[in-house]
């Protein structure tokens, strides 16, 4: 069996697919940050968009998300949404800062209720 996805995205995929799936992900934000600095191919960008969407789905749907993931870094720009998972989960994040493909997955009213 060969690894079936983009190798450069592997650590971030791992953080989302196996750690965030159970409410954890000690390096999720750093791994996502590293990818923001890379010049990704079109294929990698498409895969990244898919993993980002998966991350947001988990964040909105899971019963438990570790508190350290929800401790936002206010020094980071809002466009870097992965540093603001607490606001996203609480429904307090301004949706206009999210990439367009993630906005349909963000349900601030449901989370804030």
């Amino acid at each position, binding site marked *: *069996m*060969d*690894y*079936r996805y983009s190798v450069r995205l592997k*650590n971030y995929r*791992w953080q*989302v*697919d*196996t*750690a965030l*799936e*159970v*409410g*954890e992900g*000690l*390096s999720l934000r*750093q*791994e996502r940050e590293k990818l923001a600095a890379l010049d990704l191919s079109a294929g990698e960008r498409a895969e990244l968009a*898919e*993993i980002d*969407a*998966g991350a947001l*789905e*988990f964040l909105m*749907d899971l019963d*438990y998300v*570790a*508190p*350290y993931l929800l401790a936002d870094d206010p020094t980071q720009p809002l466009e870097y949404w992965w540093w603001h998972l607490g606001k996203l989960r609480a429904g307090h994040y301004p949706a206009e800062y999210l990439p367009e493909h993630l906005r349909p997955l963000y349900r601030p009213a449901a989370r804030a209720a």
Partner: protein
Amino acid sequence: MEERSKARQAIGEARHQRVWPVSRIKPQGRMAQHTLDALRDYRHIPEVGAFLNELISKQYRIDSRLWHYFKYKYQWDDPLRSPEELDERFEAVLRDKDATVHPIGERYIIHSQLAGRWAIIDSRGFRITVYRPTEQDLENLETPLWTIATLFA
């Protein structure tokens, strides 16, 4: 109950019972779809075909140990031979007297350098996950409060 007693109780339970929570898989979720797509590529293998059928019959509520096993093995190329091996990995971490214990929210990370893995358990001692941390994970891990040896001294 004081923090130390809570940690002792949770780790003690995790050592003596092999309980994993039930995963409620959302088959329409993106990451679950990736896993299910990977598994469908191997549905000719009897254990995979049976697991895919079990997921449907149980409406995607499944022992998380099984979900871990199939995900790790068939999506992440982990050389696991059986779901029981996940428990063996857990127990290798929890047996290590030098393993460090890190409270994180309602859970604990127990990191064993000897086993090369960390295990995460919840306050009931349920087995949440076990895997090899990355270098970044280890950098992010805060100072432990105890080792297994000092916790149970």
